[in-house]
Protein backbone atom coordinates (compact mmCIF):
# COMPACT_ATOMS: atom_id res chain seq x y z
CA UNK A 1 0.00 0.00 0.00
CA UNK A 2 1.36 3.40 -0.91
CA UNK A 3 1.51 6.20 1.61
CA UNK A 4 -0.95 8.19 -0.41
CA UNK A 5 -3.60 5.49 -0.37
CA UNK A 6 -3.08 4.93 3.37
CA UNK A 7 -3.63 8.61 3.96
CA UNK A 8 -6.87 8.64 1.96
CA UNK A 9 -8.02 5.60 3.89
CA UNK A 10 -7.39 7.05 7.36
CA UNK A 11 -8.64 10.49 6.47
CA UNK A 12 -12.02 9.03 5.60
CA UNK A 13 -12.31 7.30 8.97
CA UNK A 14 -13.79 9.07 11.91
CA UNK A 15 -11.50 8.24 14.77
CA UNK A 16 -13.75 7.97 17.80
CA UNK A 17 -10.79 7.33 20.06
CA UNK A 18 -8.85 10.49 19.33
CA UNK A 19 -10.36 12.16 22.36
CA UNK A 20 -8.39 10.13 24.90
CA UNK A 21 -5.11 11.36 23.43
CA UNK A 22 -6.44 14.91 23.59
CA UNK A 23 -7.73 14.38 27.11
CA UNK A 24 -4.31 13.22 28.32
CA UNK A 25 -2.57 16.08 26.52
CA UNK A 26 -4.97 18.67 27.93
CA UNK A 27 -4.55 17.44 31.49
CA UNK A 28 -0.75 17.58 31.33
CA UNK A 29 1.12 20.48 32.91
CA UNK A 30 3.07 22.17 30.15
CA UNK A 31 2.89 21.19 26.50
CA UNK A 32 2.90 17.38 26.33
CA UNK A 33 3.63 17.03 22.55
CA UNK A 34 2.23 13.51 22.97
CA UNK A 35 0.69 13.59 19.48
CA UNK A 36 4.20 13.83 18.03
CA UNK A 37 5.26 10.31 19.11
CA UNK A 38 6.99 8.43 16.29
CA UNK A 39 7.09 5.10 18.18
CA UNK A 40 10.89 4.93 18.15
CA UNK A 41 11.13 3.32 21.60
CA UNK A 42 13.93 5.53 22.92
CA UNK A 43 11.82 6.10 26.05
CA UNK A 44 11.49 2.42 26.97
CA UNK A 45 15.13 1.74 26.11
CA UNK A 46 16.22 4.55 28.43
CA UNK A 47 13.95 3.62 31.32
CA UNK A 48 15.68 2.29 34.47
CA UNK A 49 12.48 0.61 35.66
CA UNK A 50 11.21 -0.37 32.20
CA UNK A 51 11.79 -4.07 32.83
CA UNK A 52 9.14 -4.03 35.55
CA UNK A 53 6.52 -2.16 33.55
CA UNK A 54 3.68 -4.11 31.95
CA UNK A 55 3.86 -1.79 28.92
CA UNK A 56 6.85 0.27 27.88
CA UNK A 57 6.11 3.99 27.52
CA UNK A 58 6.17 3.58 23.72
CA UNK A 59 3.51 0.86 23.86
CA UNK A 60 1.47 2.94 26.26
CA UNK A 61 1.53 5.93 23.90
CA UNK A 62 0.30 3.73 21.05
CA UNK A 63 -2.48 2.50 23.34
CA UNK A 64 -3.40 6.08 24.27
CA UNK A 65 -3.59 6.89 20.58
CA UNK A 66 -5.77 3.83 20.04
CA UNK A 67 -8.10 5.09 22.76
CA UNK A 68 -7.56 2.11 25.06
CA UNK A 69 -8.50 4.19 28.08
CA UNK A 70 -9.12 1.45 30.60
CA UNK A 71 -6.06 -0.64 29.69
CA UNK A 72 -3.87 2.45 29.83
CA UNK A 73 -5.16 3.60 33.21
CA UNK A 74 -4.84 0.08 34.63
CA UNK A 75 -1.23 -0.20 33.48
CA UNK A 76 1.48 -0.14 36.15
CA UNK A 77 3.75 1.88 33.83
CA UNK A 78 3.18 5.35 35.30
CA UNK A 79 3.43 3.94 38.83
CA UNK A 80 6.81 2.36 38.09
CA UNK A 81 8.12 5.66 36.68
CA UNK A 82 10.96 6.90 38.91
CA UNK A 83 10.90 10.49 37.55
CA UNK A 84 14.49 10.27 36.27
CA UNK A 85 13.65 12.23 33.08
CA UNK A 86 16.00 10.14 30.89
CA UNK A 87 13.15 9.53 28.41
CA UNK A 88 12.20 13.21 28.46
CA UNK A 89 15.67 14.50 27.52
CA UNK A 90 16.29 11.71 25.01
CA UNK A 91 12.95 11.82 23.16
CA UNK A 92 13.68 13.03 19.62
CA UNK A 93 10.19 14.55 19.52
CA UNK A 94 10.64 16.36 22.84
CA UNK A 95 7.56 14.75 24.36
CA UNK A 96 7.29 15.63 28.05
CA UNK A 97 7.05 11.96 28.97
CA UNK A 98 7.56 12.27 32.73
CA UNK A 99 4.81 14.89 32.93
CA UNK A 100 2.53 12.62 30.89
CA UNK A 101 3.19 9.85 33.43
CA UNK A 102 2.07 12.21 36.22
CA UNK A 103 -1.11 12.91 34.23
CA UNK A 104 -1.82 9.20 33.84
CA UNK A 105 -1.42 8.74 37.60
CA UNK A 106 -3.89 11.60 38.22
CA UNK A 107 -6.39 10.05 35.81
CA UNK A 108 -5.97 6.54 37.21
CA UNK A 109 -6.62 7.82 40.75
CA UNK A 110 -9.61 9.89 39.61
CA UNK A 111 -11.20 6.92 37.86
CA UNK A 112 -9.94 4.42 40.48
CA UNK A 113 -8.52 2.22 37.74
CA UNK A 114 -5.10 1.37 39.14
CA UNK A 115 -4.42 -2.36 39.57
CA UNK A 116 -2.20 -2.15 42.61
CA UNK A 117 -2.68 0.29 45.49
CA UNK A 118 0.89 0.50 46.87
CA UNK A 119 2.06 3.45 44.79
CA UNK A 120 -1.18 5.51 44.85
CA UNK A 121 -1.43 4.92 48.60
CA UNK A 122 2.14 6.09 49.11
CA UNK A 123 1.51 9.33 47.20
CA UNK A 124 -1.75 9.95 49.05
CA UNK A 125 -0.31 9.24 52.49
CA UNK A 126 2.65 11.52 51.73
CA UNK A 127 0.35 14.31 50.60
CA UNK A 128 -1.97 13.78 53.57
CA UNK A 129 0.95 14.66 55.86
CA UNK A 130 1.85 17.70 53.78
CA UNK A 131 -1.76 18.94 53.69
CA UNK A 132 -1.93 18.70 57.47
CA UNK A 133 1.47 20.00 58.52
CA UNK A 134 2.85 21.85 55.49
CA UNK A 135 5.96 19.67 55.71
CA UNK A 136 6.57 16.02 55.04
CA UNK A 137 6.67 13.74 58.06
CA UNK A 138 8.77 10.69 57.28
CA UNK A 139 8.11 8.72 60.46
CA UNK A 140 4.34 9.00 60.11
CA UNK A 141 4.50 8.25 56.41
CA UNK A 142 6.80 5.25 56.80
CA UNK A 143 4.79 3.79 59.70
CA UNK A 144 1.45 3.99 57.89
CA UNK A 145 2.86 2.83 54.57
CA UNK A 146 5.08 -0.05 55.65
CA UNK A 147 2.54 -1.47 58.15
CA UNK A 148 -0.10 -1.50 55.43
CA UNK A 149 1.92 -2.61 52.43
CA UNK A 150 5.19 -4.20 53.57
CA UNK A 151 4.71 -5.62 57.10
CA UNK A 152 6.95 -8.55 56.26
CA UNK A 153 9.83 -6.28 55.29
CA UNK A 154 9.88 -4.64 58.71
CA UNK A 155 11.97 -7.24 60.59
CA UNK A 156 14.67 -7.04 57.92
CA UNK A 157 14.52 -3.26 58.06
CA UNK A 158 15.07 -3.04 61.81
CA UNK A 159 18.85 -2.38 61.58
CA UNK A 160 18.12 0.52 59.24
CA UNK A 161 15.28 1.91 61.35
CA UNK A 162 17.31 1.66 64.58
CA UNK A 163 20.34 3.10 62.79
CA UNK A 164 18.44 6.10 61.47
CA UNK A 165 16.74 6.71 64.83
CA UNK A 166 19.97 6.49 66.83
CA UNK A 167 21.67 8.92 64.45
CA UNK A 168 18.71 11.30 64.80
CA UNK A 169 17.96 11.07 61.11
CA UNK A 170 14.28 10.43 61.81
CA UNK A 171 12.37 13.26 63.41
CA UNK A 172 9.85 12.04 65.99
CA UNK A 173 7.25 14.80 65.75
CA UNK A 174 5.99 16.62 62.66
CA UNK A 175 6.84 20.27 62.11
CA UNK A 176 3.75 22.38 61.43
CA UNK A 177 4.31 25.55 59.42
CA UNK A 178 2.91 28.82 60.78
CA UNK A 179 0.94 29.60 57.65
CA UNK A 180 -1.00 26.35 57.76
CA UNK A 181 -4.37 28.11 57.45
CA UNK A 182 -3.08 30.08 54.49
CA UNK A 183 -1.77 26.91 52.83
CA UNK A 184 -5.07 25.10 53.43
CA UNK A 185 -7.01 27.99 51.86
CA UNK A 186 -4.69 27.98 48.85
CA UNK A 187 -4.99 24.22 48.37
CA UNK A 188 -8.79 24.28 48.78
CA UNK A 189 -9.05 26.95 46.07
CA UNK A 190 -6.64 24.99 43.86
CA UNK A 191 -8.78 21.86 44.21
CA UNK A 192 -11.88 23.86 43.31
CA UNK A 193 -10.14 25.16 40.19
CA UNK A 194 -9.14 21.60 39.35
CA UNK A 195 -12.75 20.51 39.79
CA UNK A 196 -11.79 18.18 42.60
CA UNK A 197 -13.18 19.85 45.70
Amino acid sequence: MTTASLETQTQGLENPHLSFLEEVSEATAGESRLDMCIQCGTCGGSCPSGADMDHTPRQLFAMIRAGMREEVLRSNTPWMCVSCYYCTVRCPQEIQITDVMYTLKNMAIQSKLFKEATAPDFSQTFIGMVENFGRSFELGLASVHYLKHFPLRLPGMMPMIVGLLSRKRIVLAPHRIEGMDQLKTILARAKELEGQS
Partner: protein
Amino acid sequence: MTKYLFYPGCSMDASARAYNDSLMAIRDPLGLELEEIQDWNCCGATEYLGISVTPAYALISRNLALASKQANGSHTVVASCSACYLNLTKADHHMAKQPDMGERVNQALSAGGLHYTPGSLQIRHLLDVIVNDVGLDHVKSKVVKPLQGLRVAPYLGCMIPRPDYSGRLSDHEYPNELDRLLRALGAEVIDFPLKTACCGGHIPQISPATAFDLLRRLISAAAQYNADMMVTVCPMCQLNLDAYQGEMNRFFNTKYHMPVVFFTQLVGLAFGFDAAKLGFGKELVNPRPALEKIGVEVPQPEETKARQKKVKKTGLPMPVMPGDEEVSE
Protein backbone atom coordinates in the same frame (compact mmCIF):
# COMPACT_ATOMS: atom_id res chain seq x y z
CA MET B 1 29.20 37.76 50.63
CA THR B 2 26.60 37.05 47.99
CA LYS B 3 23.06 36.79 49.25
CA TYR B 4 20.69 33.99 48.30
CA LEU B 5 17.19 33.04 49.36
CA PHE B 6 17.55 29.54 50.74
CA TYR B 7 15.00 26.77 50.37
CA PRO B 8 16.27 23.86 52.51
CA GLY B 9 13.45 21.35 52.00
CA CYS B 10 12.11 18.86 54.54
CA SER B 11 14.97 16.37 54.56
CA MET B 12 17.67 18.87 55.62
CA ASP B 13 16.28 18.75 59.16
CA ALA B 14 15.85 15.00 59.19
CA SER B 15 17.50 12.30 57.12
CA ALA B 16 19.97 14.71 55.48
CA ARG B 17 21.07 16.48 58.66
CA ALA B 18 24.69 15.84 57.66
CA TYR B 19 24.10 17.86 54.48
CA ASN B 20 22.69 20.73 56.53
CA ASP B 21 25.47 20.67 59.16
CA SER B 22 28.21 20.65 56.53
CA LEU B 23 26.57 23.38 54.46
CA MET B 24 26.24 25.62 57.51
CA ALA B 25 29.95 25.06 58.24
CA ILE B 26 31.21 25.92 54.75
CA ARG B 27 28.92 28.80 53.82
CA ASP B 28 31.17 31.46 55.38
CA PRO B 29 34.43 30.45 53.69
CA LEU B 30 32.45 30.14 50.44
CA GLY B 31 31.08 33.66 50.91
CA LEU B 32 27.47 32.50 50.72
CA GLU B 33 24.84 34.36 52.68
CA LEU B 34 21.85 32.06 52.85
CA GLU B 35 18.63 33.67 54.00
CA GLU B 36 16.03 30.99 54.65
CA ILE B 37 12.62 31.55 53.04
CA GLN B 38 10.34 32.26 56.01
CA ASP B 39 7.78 29.55 56.74
CA TRP B 40 8.42 27.60 53.55
CA ASN B 41 6.39 24.44 52.95
CA CYS B 42 7.13 21.01 51.45
CA CYS B 43 7.49 21.00 47.66
CA GLY B 44 5.39 17.83 47.36
CA ALA B 45 8.37 15.78 46.14
CA THR B 46 7.38 13.49 43.28
CA GLU B 47 4.05 12.67 44.96
CA TYR B 48 1.68 15.61 44.57
CA LEU B 49 2.32 16.01 40.83
CA GLY B 50 0.89 12.52 40.37
CA ILE B 51 -2.30 13.33 42.23
CA SER B 52 -3.54 16.69 41.06
CA VAL B 53 -2.04 19.41 38.87
CA THR B 54 -3.23 22.79 40.19
CA PRO B 55 -2.90 21.91 43.90
CA ALA B 56 0.58 20.45 43.29
CA TYR B 57 1.81 23.58 41.53
CA ALA B 58 0.07 25.85 44.06
CA LEU B 59 1.88 24.02 46.87
CA ILE B 60 5.24 24.56 45.16
CA SER B 61 4.48 28.14 44.18
CA ARG B 62 3.57 29.27 47.69
CA ASN B 63 7.33 29.02 48.32
CA LEU B 64 8.16 31.08 45.25
CA ALA B 65 5.57 33.68 46.24
CA LEU B 66 7.01 33.89 49.76
CA ALA B 67 10.53 34.13 48.35
CA SER B 68 9.69 37.00 46.01
CA LYS B 69 7.94 38.85 48.84
CA GLN B 70 10.96 38.39 51.08
CA ALA B 71 13.51 39.09 48.34
CA ASN B 72 15.43 41.88 50.04
CA GLY B 73 18.15 42.40 47.52
CA SER B 74 18.28 38.90 46.14
CA HIS B 75 16.27 37.29 43.40
CA THR B 76 18.05 33.98 43.44
CA VAL B 77 16.58 31.01 45.27
CA VAL B 78 19.04 28.26 46.08
CA ALA B 79 17.84 24.75 46.91
CA SER B 80 20.06 22.03 48.32
CA CYS B 81 17.78 19.09 47.54
CA SER B 82 17.56 17.99 43.92
CA ALA B 83 13.85 17.14 44.04
CA CYS B 84 13.00 20.50 45.64
CA TYR B 85 15.19 22.25 43.09
CA LEU B 86 13.43 20.52 40.21
CA ASN B 87 9.94 21.19 41.58
CA LEU B 88 10.64 24.89 42.08
CA THR B 89 12.07 25.24 38.56
CA LYS B 90 9.24 23.13 37.16
CA ALA B 91 6.55 25.39 38.61
CA ASP B 92 8.35 28.50 37.37
CA HIS B 93 8.88 26.98 33.92
CA HIS B 94 5.34 25.68 33.35
CA MET B 95 3.70 28.83 34.73
CA ALA B 96 5.76 30.92 32.32
CA LYS B 97 5.20 28.67 29.29
CA GLN B 98 1.50 28.02 29.90
CA PRO B 99 -0.05 31.35 30.90
CA ASP B 100 -3.47 29.79 31.59
CA MET B 101 -1.90 27.39 34.04
CA GLY B 102 0.07 30.24 35.63
CA GLU B 103 -3.22 32.11 35.91
CA ARG B 104 -4.91 29.19 37.69
CA VAL B 105 -2.03 28.75 40.13
CA ASN B 106 -2.10 32.47 40.90
CA GLN B 107 -5.86 32.35 41.46
CA ALA B 108 -5.25 29.67 44.07
CA LEU B 109 -2.37 31.64 45.62
CA SER B 110 -4.49 34.79 45.79
CA ALA B 111 -6.91 32.95 48.11
CA GLY B 112 -4.00 33.09 50.57
CA GLY B 113 -3.07 36.67 49.67
CA LEU B 114 -0.03 35.64 47.61
CA HIS B 115 1.13 36.06 44.04
CA TYR B 116 4.04 34.81 41.97
CA THR B 117 5.18 36.27 38.66
CA PRO B 118 6.81 33.44 36.72
CA GLY B 119 10.35 34.25 35.68
CA SER B 120 10.85 36.83 38.44
CA LEU B 121 13.16 34.58 40.47
CA GLN B 122 16.20 32.64 39.40
CA ILE B 123 16.17 29.13 40.87
CA ARG B 124 19.46 27.33 41.29
CA HIS B 125 20.86 24.21 42.88
CA LEU B 126 23.58 24.60 45.50
CA LEU B 127 26.11 22.69 43.35
CA ASP B 128 25.55 25.11 40.46
CA VAL B 129 25.96 28.11 42.78
CA ILE B 130 29.22 26.79 44.27
CA VAL B 131 30.76 25.85 40.93
CA ASN B 132 29.54 28.80 38.86
CA ASP B 133 29.05 31.72 41.28
CA VAL B 134 31.61 31.05 43.99
CA GLY B 135 33.94 29.51 41.41
CA LEU B 136 36.54 26.79 41.64
CA ASP B 137 39.41 29.25 42.02
CA HIS B 138 37.86 30.57 45.21
CA VAL B 139 37.20 27.00 46.40
CA LYS B 140 40.82 26.04 45.71
CA SER B 141 42.08 29.08 47.61
CA LYS B 142 40.27 27.87 50.74
CA VAL B 143 41.60 24.30 50.64
CA VAL B 144 43.98 23.74 53.53
CA LYS B 145 43.82 19.97 53.66
CA PRO B 146 43.64 18.53 50.14
CA LEU B 147 41.85 15.18 49.94
CA GLN B 148 44.93 13.55 48.38
CA GLY B 149 44.51 9.81 48.00
CA LEU B 150 40.74 9.71 48.46
CA ARG B 151 39.16 7.94 45.50
CA VAL B 152 35.62 9.18 44.96
CA ALA B 153 32.75 8.35 42.60
CA PRO B 154 30.88 11.58 41.81
CA TYR B 155 27.15 10.82 41.76
CA LEU B 156 24.59 13.44 40.74
CA GLY B 157 21.46 11.41 40.19
CA CYS B 158 18.67 12.69 38.01
CA MET B 159 17.02 15.89 39.02
CA ILE B 160 19.77 18.47 38.64
CA PRO B 161 20.88 17.49 35.12
CA ARG B 162 17.40 16.51 33.91
CA PRO B 163 15.25 18.07 32.59
CA ASP B 164 17.35 21.17 33.51
CA TYR B 165 14.85 23.59 31.95
CA SER B 166 17.26 26.54 31.84
CA GLY B 167 20.34 24.56 30.79
CA ARG B 168 22.41 25.31 33.87
CA LEU B 169 24.59 22.19 33.77
CA SER B 170 27.08 21.19 31.09
CA ASP B 171 25.13 18.08 30.03
CA HIS B 172 21.92 16.13 30.74
CA GLU B 173 23.68 12.82 31.11
CA TYR B 174 27.38 13.43 31.63
CA PRO B 175 27.86 16.79 33.31
CA ASN B 176 31.29 17.57 34.80
CA GLU B 177 30.50 20.15 37.52
CA LEU B 178 30.74 17.79 40.49
CA ASP B 179 33.88 16.14 39.09
CA ARG B 180 35.61 19.49 38.74
CA LEU B 181 34.61 20.59 42.23
CA LEU B 182 35.89 17.37 43.83
CA ARG B 183 39.12 17.61 41.84
CA ALA B 184 39.56 21.16 43.13
CA LEU B 185 39.47 19.66 46.63
CA GLY B 186 42.38 17.41 45.70
CA ALA B 187 40.40 14.16 45.56
CA GLU B 188 41.07 11.45 43.02
CA VAL B 189 37.89 11.55 40.92
CA ILE B 190 36.69 8.49 39.03
CA ASP B 191 35.19 9.06 35.60
CA PHE B 192 32.01 7.44 36.88
CA PRO B 193 29.84 6.17 34.04
CA LEU B 194 26.66 6.01 36.16
CA LYS B 195 26.99 9.53 37.55
CA THR B 196 23.48 10.49 36.46
CA ALA B 197 21.79 7.07 36.63
CA CYS B 198 18.75 6.81 38.87
CA CYS B 199 18.80 5.76 42.56
CA GLY B 200 15.12 4.84 42.37
CA GLY B 201 13.66 7.87 44.13
CA HIS B 202 10.55 6.70 45.98
CA ILE B 203 10.60 3.21 44.45
CA PRO B 204 11.93 1.41 47.61
CA GLN B 205 8.48 2.21 49.05
CA ILE B 206 6.67 0.80 46.03
CA SER B 207 8.58 -1.99 44.36
CA PRO B 208 11.56 -3.10 46.51
CA ALA B 209 12.97 -5.54 43.94
CA THR B 210 13.14 -2.77 41.32
CA ALA B 211 14.78 -0.47 43.85
CA PHE B 212 17.42 -2.97 44.96
CA ASP B 213 18.35 -3.61 41.34
CA LEU B 214 18.92 0.10 40.71
CA LEU B 215 20.91 0.46 43.93
CA ARG B 216 23.08 -2.54 43.13
CA ARG B 217 23.88 -1.16 39.70
CA LEU B 218 25.22 2.03 41.22
CA ILE B 219 26.99 0.53 44.21
CA SER B 220 28.58 -2.34 42.29
CA ALA B 221 29.83 0.05 39.62
CA ALA B 222 31.42 2.30 42.24
CA ALA B 223 32.95 -0.78 43.91
CA GLN B 224 34.33 -2.07 40.62
CA TYR B 225 35.99 1.28 40.06
CA ASN B 226 37.57 0.86 43.51
CA ALA B 227 35.91 3.97 44.83
CA ASP B 228 36.48 4.66 48.52
CA MET B 229 33.09 6.35 48.61
CA MET B 230 30.30 7.80 46.53
CA VAL B 231 29.65 11.54 46.74
CA THR B 232 26.10 12.81 46.30
CA VAL B 233 24.36 16.17 45.92
CA CYS B 234 20.87 14.95 46.86
CA PRO B 235 19.23 13.85 50.15
CA MET B 236 17.08 11.23 48.41
CA CYS B 237 20.07 9.62 46.65
CA GLN B 238 22.04 9.58 49.90
CA LEU B 239 19.18 8.01 51.86
CA ASN B 240 18.51 5.34 49.25
CA LEU B 241 22.15 4.37 48.71
CA ASP B 242 23.16 4.54 52.35
CA ALA B 243 20.11 3.39 54.31
CA TYR B 244 18.89 0.70 51.91
CA GLN B 245 22.35 -0.71 51.18
CA GLY B 246 21.96 -3.27 54.00
CA GLU B 247 18.57 -4.46 52.80
CA MET B 248 19.90 -4.59 49.25
CA ASN B 249 22.88 -6.67 50.39
CA ARG B 250 20.55 -9.15 52.08
CA PHE B 251 18.33 -9.27 48.99
CA PHE B 252 21.21 -10.20 46.67
CA ASN B 253 23.35 -11.90 49.30
CA THR B 254 26.17 -9.47 48.61
CA LYS B 255 28.49 -7.69 51.02
CA TYR B 256 29.03 -4.28 49.55
CA HIS B 257 30.31 -1.61 51.88
CA MET B 258 30.13 1.63 49.93
CA PRO B 259 29.97 4.80 52.04
CA VAL B 260 27.88 7.62 50.57
CA VAL B 261 28.53 11.19 51.70
CA PHE B 262 27.39 14.67 50.68
CA PHE B 263 29.71 16.82 48.57
CA THR B 264 29.50 19.60 51.16
CA GLN B 265 31.01 17.24 53.76
CA LEU B 266 34.10 16.77 51.59
CA VAL B 267 34.32 20.50 50.90
CA GLY B 268 34.31 20.97 54.69
CA LEU B 269 37.07 18.40 55.22
CA ALA B 270 39.27 20.02 52.59
CA PHE B 271 38.63 23.42 54.21
CA GLY B 272 40.03 21.96 57.44
CA PHE B 273 36.84 21.60 59.48
CA ASP B 274 36.49 18.92 62.11
CA ALA B 275 34.66 15.84 60.76
CA ALA B 276 32.21 15.91 63.67
CA LYS B 277 31.09 19.44 62.67
CA LEU B 278 30.34 18.21 59.16
CA GLY B 279 27.78 15.58 60.06
CA PHE B 280 30.14 12.61 59.68
CA GLY B 281 29.02 9.72 61.86
CA LYS B 282 25.41 9.90 60.69
CA GLU B 283 25.88 7.41 57.84
CA LEU B 284 24.68 3.83 58.14
CA VAL B 285 27.54 2.65 55.93
CA ASN B 286 30.57 3.77 57.89
CA PRO B 287 33.00 5.98 55.91
CA ARG B 288 35.60 5.73 58.71
CA PRO B 289 37.96 3.22 57.00
CA ALA B 290 37.93 5.30 53.82
CA LEU B 291 38.62 8.56 55.62
CA GLU B 292 41.34 7.07 57.83
CA LYS B 293 43.24 6.53 54.58
CA ILE B 294 43.64 10.28 54.31
CA GLY B 295 44.18 10.80 58.02
CA VAL B 296 40.73 12.07 58.94
CA GLU B 297 39.31 11.09 62.32
CA VAL B 298 35.62 10.34 62.13
CA PRO B 299 33.46 10.18 65.25
CA GLN B 300 32.35 6.64 66.00
CA PRO B 301 28.68 6.32 65.19
CA GLU B 302 26.44 4.97 67.93
CA GLU B 303 26.62 1.32 66.91
CA THR B 304 23.40 -0.46 66.24
CA LYS B 305 22.76 -4.08 67.01
CA ALA B 306 22.71 -4.90 63.33
CA ARG B 307 24.49 -8.16 62.78
CA GLN B 308 26.54 -8.81 59.69
CA LYS B 309 25.41 -11.97 57.99
CA LYS B 310 28.31 -14.36 57.66
CA VAL B 311 28.96 -16.15 54.40
CA LYS B 312 29.00 -19.87 55.01
CA LYS B 313 32.34 -21.48 54.31
CA THR B 314 31.43 -24.55 52.28
CA GLY B 315 34.93 -25.50 51.29
CA LEU B 316 33.74 -25.78 47.73
CA PRO B 317 34.54 -23.24 45.03
CA MET B 318 31.33 -21.20 45.00
CA PRO B 319 30.44 -18.47 42.54
CA VAL B 320 31.43 -15.11 43.96
CA MET B 321 29.13 -12.14 43.74
CA PRO B 322 30.76 -8.83 42.92
CA GLY B 323 31.20 -7.13 46.26
CA ASP B 324 32.08 -10.27 48.19
CA GLU B 325 35.72 -9.34 47.88
CA GLU B 326 34.91 -5.88 49.29
CA VAL B 327 34.36 -7.32 52.79
CA SER B 328 36.18 -5.42 55.45
CA GLU B 329 36.45 -7.73 58.43
